[in-house]
Structures are given as C-alpha cells and as structure tokens.
C-alpha cells in the first residue's frame, strides 16, 4: 500500500475549532422565534479555544466524542495499532541489543533506551 504517500496528509477527526467555526458561523441561518445574537463568534471561538486548547482538557469535560465516532477514527485506530506493534518490535530489538552488548555497555544502553522513548513520545 502507499502508506508513505498518504502519511503526507494528516487525516484526523475534526478538532473543536473546526467544529465551532462551522456550527457558530456557517450553516443556513434561520431566524426562529428566539433572537440569538452570535455577533462575536470570533471572540467566542477564541474563548472556547483557550478553555479547551488541548485534547486532554476536552476529554476532561467530555468533548471527546469525535474520537469514537467517525470513520477517520477507524483509520487512526489502525495507525495506532501499527504504532503499538512497531513499539513492541523496537523494544524487543533494544532488549536483544542490550543482551549482546553485555555488562560494560549497560549504562549507555539504558541511556539510549530512555532517549528513544522520549523521541517516540515527541513524535506522537
């Protein structure tokens, strides 16, 4: 499969800003019986962005449904499974490497393990 090519585009479930921009600012405007002024949508969106600027925070207040609800999430789940598998294989290789390099190199290989864990985290 052309996994290398598709990786150039991030396909992800919509973030809060994308949702808010559409719900509050787009869509057909119908003036019902209640007058609602959404005059300052930009300000409102900014406030909300500040509040839920991270996925973690969004999860805390229960705004994380999109993670479970779109076909993009399925793709993300597949990628996540692949990541997990790769992480396991890297860990296995690191274990082998450590065994091969024996006692003298131990402290170094521990340091390297920590480093690669950190860089993996950064990539996520």
């Amino acid at each position, binding site marked *: 499969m052309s996994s290398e*090519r*598709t990786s*150039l*585009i*991030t*396909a*992800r*479930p*919509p*973030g*809060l*800003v*994308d*949702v*808010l*921009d*559409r*719900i*509050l*600012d*787009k*869509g*057909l*405007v*119908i*003036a*019902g*019986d*209640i*007058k*609602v*002024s*959404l005059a300052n949508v*930009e300000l*409102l*969106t*900014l*406030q*909300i*962005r*500040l*509040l*839920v600027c991270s996925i973690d925070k969004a999860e805390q*207040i*229960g*705004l994380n*449904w*999109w993670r479970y*609800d779109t076909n*993009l999430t399925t793709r993300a789940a597949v990628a996540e499974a692949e990541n997990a598998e790769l992480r396991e294989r890297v860990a296995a290789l690191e274990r082998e490497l450590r065994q091969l390099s024996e006692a003298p190199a131990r402290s170094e290989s521990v340091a390297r393990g920590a480093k690669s864990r950190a860089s993996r985290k950064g990539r996520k």
Partner: protein
Amino acid sequence: MSERKSKRSQNQADEWRGLYVYCVGEREALAPLFDAALPEAIEDEYKLGAVEAGGLAAVVSAVPLDVYGEGALEARLSDATWTATRALRHERVAEHFARRAAVVPLRFGAIYLRREGVELMLGERAAQFREVLARLGGREEWGLNVYVERARLREEVTRLSARLREMAERADASTPGQAYLLRKKIEGLRDEEARAETRRVAREVEETLGETCDGAVRLRVLKDEATEQGELAARLAFLVSAEAFGDFRAAAEGLAERYTPLGFRFELTGPWPAYNFAVAEERQV
C-alpha cells in the same frame, strides 16, 4: 401567535419549551433514519424528533426556554464550556443525518416556540431548501487545513531564491559593517518571500482541488492560530461528490508531496455536513 406572555407564569417554567432545529431534508429520506440509534440531543433529557410539512422534514428536539429563551441564551453563550458542549451536540446530530441523507445543516440557534412555527418555516422556504438539497445530494464537505512551519519555509525560500543566495555570498565576502546591513536586508526579503509563497501555495491548493469539486470556499483564519502542526496558513472547505473523492484525495496527496519539503503540512477533516454550502442563491445574514 396570539398567545400572551402573561399566560406563562414563573412556576410553569418546566412546561415552557421551545424546539431547536438542527437540519432539514426530504421527509422520505429522513423518516427511516429515526429508527436507528440516535445521537444525544442538544439537551440530553429530550429526544430527537421530526417536524414535517410539504414533503420536507426538520430534525428537532425540545429545549427548556428558561435556558434557551431570549436573553437567557445570550448569558449561557458566554460560558465557553456550555457553548462548546452544545455546539458539539448540534454537530453530532447534523452529522448523523448528513451521513445518511442529503440535509441542509442550520447554524446554531434556530429555536421556535411552537411546532407550527417550524411547519410554517418549512413551507415558506420549501423552494430554497429543495434547491440546496438538489445541489448537496451525493456530495460531502471536506475541510483542508494548511499549516506552515515558518522557520523551515524561510530557509527553503533562501535556498531556492537565486537573488537571496547571491546576496548571502556577497555578505560573506564583505566587511563586517557592510555584511551586517546586507544580512538585515536579506532577513527582510526572506520574510516577505515566505509570506508571498504561503499566499501562493494557499491559492494553488484552492484552485487545484477546486477543479475536482463542486464548490470551494476559503474560511476565516483566526489570528495567531498556532498549533503543534505549525502556523495555520489557510483553512479551506470543498464540496466533493462521492465519485470525485478519489481524484480529490489524489490531488491533495500530490500537493502535499510537492509542498511538504518546503515546510507545509496538510490536514484533511471530514466528511462534514455541508455547512459551508448550505446557502442558496442569496446569502442572508
């Protein structure tokens, strides 16, 4: 309409409900969709339902007017958490129906006091709804966000521009004083070229992808919209037919391949209910 406000006493607040409208579609297409499991309504203690008139149907749910009534709603909207939650519920409902039928998604906040009000609205706007529904049938809205890593783009611009390269070489060969002035000038030109390149790429993306679509819209970019992806350079929305999605996606991949090395990143979101293509001929505000 003739109902007097004084009839509603304060302890009847519970009874005093309005109807919140999410989206509108053909009655025949929407009716079967209510049999499946439905998402949460904007106020989760009420259920989603339909108001039908003249072959059209509006997806609605009840809302308590002590919260959604005039004045009260404005106060709630200033609470960011409250608004975010309701906006997401609105989106989820519109999405549920848009995935399965053509619908015109409404903007947040269409609230009626009575069922007849919704029926009347469906009747009055029937022609407009039908026109938009015909245009949206078999199509989806896709979003494309273009991010740019400014520092990387500046570097690439310097590398690619013969003029900037030549200036840099001259600076290297100059006296310290002259070199300083030249480098200042290079910095300014580099920023300018990076900005021009960003605008050009955004335009090219819009035009190239627009060719595979039935509609392209450029959305507002909020100031300082920096994320872990980089700075947001453009936010675009496209109306793509099911058959053309492969071409659209391939064209987007092609652009990503060309511009990723310059520091651009492309992010695809969707499919969305067609919020950006929900308006018929004249846009009313």
